[in-house]
């Protein structure tokens, strides 16, 4: 272990790095206390002008330009050298994963790479979202209908996972999922406005029922969940005591908000448990509700919640979408905005939110604006140490894939689609998987929702290397077989084909050289086909395949 002096030095370093407390603190901070970084340099602009829809409507192109300007301004301020722009292959793989939930087909990839239109990076997101696009200078509009199902299913899963992420009871959540996913699919297909979707979850006769069921129909659980999901604010700590850390919510405020969900008193008031004090329902900004006959408390609350002037509502969703596409939100974690947890780019978050409202909560507009920005289109390859802070967005943040994305991408890469796109979740109402896809998903669902901090576990690695699923897909892989049978094409060509079908790119010269030698030698069995199979196995198991970069 080394001399005592060396040990002391190491210990000193650990202490200096702030990583060690050598003795229990005399007065430990209370449980759940926020101990955060120093206050931000930029003040939040929201207090200057009351929140509401932006005066001038910016289309997605103009919004992307604003995003570029504000992100870029911070780079200059911090002396950051941004990464280079992603090449077409890198960009298109990323876009396909985000919009269609799987790596691109080789046909689509080729079409995109061959597309010479100067604006292609703005046209293809629409196509991948199932739209038909009339393109300047082209006779016929381009159709994206082949992508509709993929787009709808992928985003229905996004909604299901987002909404059910708050559920405290897994059995209930699985049951609710059976109904939630078809509901979400319908809305994605129709591009229902976000505010309308939320109103339905709160007041729609059926959707409200399964939403609440996932939250065990408990008043305080629903209160906590809705405030995190739709307002981006973590109130639960204030459920039992004044929350001095995140956002200064008092216990009274929590229960005033929870009152709306209290069916017992028509949602107008509630008794704080074990305090026996009764409080009246109040909105989070302190305003009193205007009750009217015939309108339930849920309706009254949903009107306030989804109002154009509610700063929490629009910002929370914009932040969530930013987190989803860029790997980390302006506010991180996404559901606990507070004074001690400020936004990294408050001005940009504010502008995006106001525009989102002005566009009537059009989710597709928001997606297009973000993926059309320079930041989204940077490479994830690092070329400068100034690119290491994920919150500066100076290179694309490498993100994990969801279990669904991984399964569907493996299906696409191997050409073996074993029910990979199904209309239901694949779990029976007891939570038992009844399809290969559902079995796979069960092994991979990660409760940590931070995309940049996705971690792989040993069991997952074993499963992917040696498990039945991998064995099946490799045995049945059309793409591998095609390559193996293409003796005429030559080994270099074979390797290119394997790379394109898995990593959606061509191999680099150094990779090609190394692997050509391997395949030429035939590997340990001196068999060319076996060697190609080995390369294929390695590609499917690689980080480059499993991560979204």
């Amino acid at each position, binding site marked *: 272990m080394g001399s005592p002096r060396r040990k002391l030095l190491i210990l000193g370093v650990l202490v200096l790095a702030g990583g060690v407390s050598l003795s229990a603190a005399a007065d430990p901070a209370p449980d759940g206390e926020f101990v955060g970084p120093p206050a931000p340099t930029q003040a939040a602009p929201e207090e200057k002008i009351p929140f509401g829809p932006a005066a001038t409507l910016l289309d997605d192109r103009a919004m992307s330009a604003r995003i570029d300007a504000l992100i870029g301004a911070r780079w200059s301020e911090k002396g950051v050298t941004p990464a280079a722009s992603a090449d077409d292959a890198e960009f298109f793989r990323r876009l396909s994963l985000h919009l269609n939930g799987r790596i691109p087909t080789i046909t689509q990839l080729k079409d995109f790479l061959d597309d010479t239109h100067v604006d292609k990076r703005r046209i293809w997101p629409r196509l991948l979202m199932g739209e038909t696009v009339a393109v300047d200078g082209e006779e016929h509009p381009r159709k994206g209908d082949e992508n509709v199902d993929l787009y709808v299913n992928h985003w229905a899963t996004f909604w299901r996972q987002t909404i059910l992420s708050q559920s405290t009871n897994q059995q209930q959540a699985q049951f609710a999922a059976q109904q939630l996913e078809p509901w979400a699919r319908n809305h994605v297909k129709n591009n229902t406005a976000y505010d309308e979707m939320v109103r339905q979850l709160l007041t729609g006769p059926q959707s409200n029922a399964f939403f609440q069921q996932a939250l065990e129909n408990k008043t305080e659980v629903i209160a906590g969940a809705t405030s995190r999901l739709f307002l981006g604010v973590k109130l639960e700590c204030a459920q039992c005591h004044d929350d001095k850390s995140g956002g200064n919510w008092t216990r009274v405020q929590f229960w005033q908000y929870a009152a709306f969900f209290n069916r017992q008193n028509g949602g107008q008031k509630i008794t704080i448990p074990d305090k026996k004090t009764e409080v009246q329902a109040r909105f989070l900004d302190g305003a009193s509700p205007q009750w009217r006959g015939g309108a339930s408390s849920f309706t009254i609350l949903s009107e306030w919640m989804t109002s154009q002037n509610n700063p929490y509502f629009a910002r929370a969703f914009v932040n969530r979408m930013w987190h989803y596409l860029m790997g980390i939100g302006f506010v991180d974690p996404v559901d606990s905005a507070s004074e001690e947890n400020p936004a990294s780019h408050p001005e940009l978050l504010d502008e995006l939110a106001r525009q989102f409202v002005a566009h009537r909560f059009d989710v597709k507009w928001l997606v297009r604006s973000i993926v059309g920005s320079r930041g989204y289109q940077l490479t994830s390859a690092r070329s400068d140490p100034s690119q290491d802070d994920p919150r500066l967005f100076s290179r694309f943040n*490498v993100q994990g894939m969801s279990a669904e994305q991984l399964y569907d991408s493996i299906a696409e890469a191997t050409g073996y689609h074993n029910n990979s796109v199904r209309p239901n979740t694949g779990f029976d109402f007891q939570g038992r998987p009844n399809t290969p896809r559902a079995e796979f998903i069960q092994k991979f669902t990660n409760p940590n929702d931070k995309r940049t901090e996705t971690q792989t576990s040993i*069991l997952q690695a074993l499963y992917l290397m040696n498990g039945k699923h991998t064995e099946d897909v490799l045995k049945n892989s059309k793409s591998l077989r095609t390559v193996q049978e293409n003796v005429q094409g030559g080994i270099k060509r074979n390797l290119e084909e394997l790379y394109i079908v898995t990593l959606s790119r061509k191999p680099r010269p150094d990779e090609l050289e190394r692997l050509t030698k391997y395949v030429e030698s035939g590997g340990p069995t001196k068999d060319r086909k076996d060697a190609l199979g080995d390369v294929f196995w390695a590609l499917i198991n690689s980080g480059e395949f499993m991560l979204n970069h």
Partner: protein
Amino acid sequence: MSSSSPRLSRRDWLKLSSAGVIGYSMSGWLGALADEGAGDKQRTKSCILLWMNGGASQIDTFDPKPGQPTGGPFKAINTREGIQISEHLPKISQFMDRMAIIRSMNTGPGQNADHGQETYHMHTGRHPRGGNQFPSIGSMVAESIGTDQAALPNYVSIAPFRQFNADAYGAGFLGPKFAPLMVAEMNYYNQQGADYDKLLKVQDVAHFQDIVKERFDARINLLRDLEKDFVGQRPGLAARSHQTAYERAVKLMQTAASKAFDLEEESSKTRDRYGRSLFGQGCLVARRLAERGVPFIEVTSGQFGNNQLGWDTHQNNFDAVKRLSTELDGAWASLMEDLRDRGLLDSTLIIWASEFGRTPQITANQNGREHWASGWSTVLAGGGIRGGQVIGSTGKEGRKIEAREVTAADFVATIAKVLGMDPKKPISPAGERLFRITDPKAEAISEILDT
């Protein structure tokens, strides 16, 4: 890492450490340093949690009320120390000098205790609250006293039943690196077959049958090249974590580590002693893992069968508990005996626990007991425990706690202390809300600690 500061923030340190970038976990360093100065005192190095799935009846096990209206038909036996336990636990009663019974667990409302919430509560020491992903005690132990270099994961869970609450068994915000390695996972539907050998093995630890070992090794080398390039170009947690997970998986495959699960190495006589049940054989695997230094091992008792889930004896309480107790008794006593004979009992903490207990009242129509979380029992035994004693009491009929209440957080704090962990150690990611191993209000049961 921020380019403007040469130091690592605590957050970065934790992240890089948990991604395996920094060789030792921080406490690995401290543990090694502390060892040098520890002297002769043996440290408790392993922990085995015997988890009774469903809510084990305390009156019919460790807190008997013979002759009382709440007592039921079981008789009580007296240990040498003058402590009474159920007649159906005769073998384990021989080890009472190494056991401390806590009879005053108070973890929730009496009858409305919920399996999902309380499984989580007892595993983490905290109430479940959407959004805060607290790690289970197993993950916290793995993170605190496990070593990165070990071939076996530092938290192994045998026959877990996760359908009440999967998060109760997870690593929460500590990350998948500290998630348990699970074998023989149980649910409502899988058949409890007799093929324990197969069930108790790590899944997927053998490569495809139709490729030879040399080919697998060649594949791993190809993969290593790809990983090296990718991590080089895209440094960061996601890429590094992928690379590390694969390296550790390969290590598990290539070393003898996974042989720990191979019960064919044990004699038939030994296997009979533990009992030819999933739980019995699971305890034998646990002993083998403890011998190999795995810091936290959990074995679950109580699968679904006879239309009832394990210890959740709403119906026919006495037949079920007698059967389960007999199975428990043989396995647990064998475990204690073998650990003692191998000189490991002093360095292994054994915990007997459940999500809650059962009502003193017996339901007339079903001859059962309902859920009961205010006045039930757990047991701590082995290393670091001052045995032969009872903590707390539930009075003549067991209807309420009369002395020395113990909360779930107190319970977890006690376990932490026995294992040399500081219950006040922060475990949440830096820069966010501060959470420690337990709520700072929790107090370890000092009477139990053998310090």
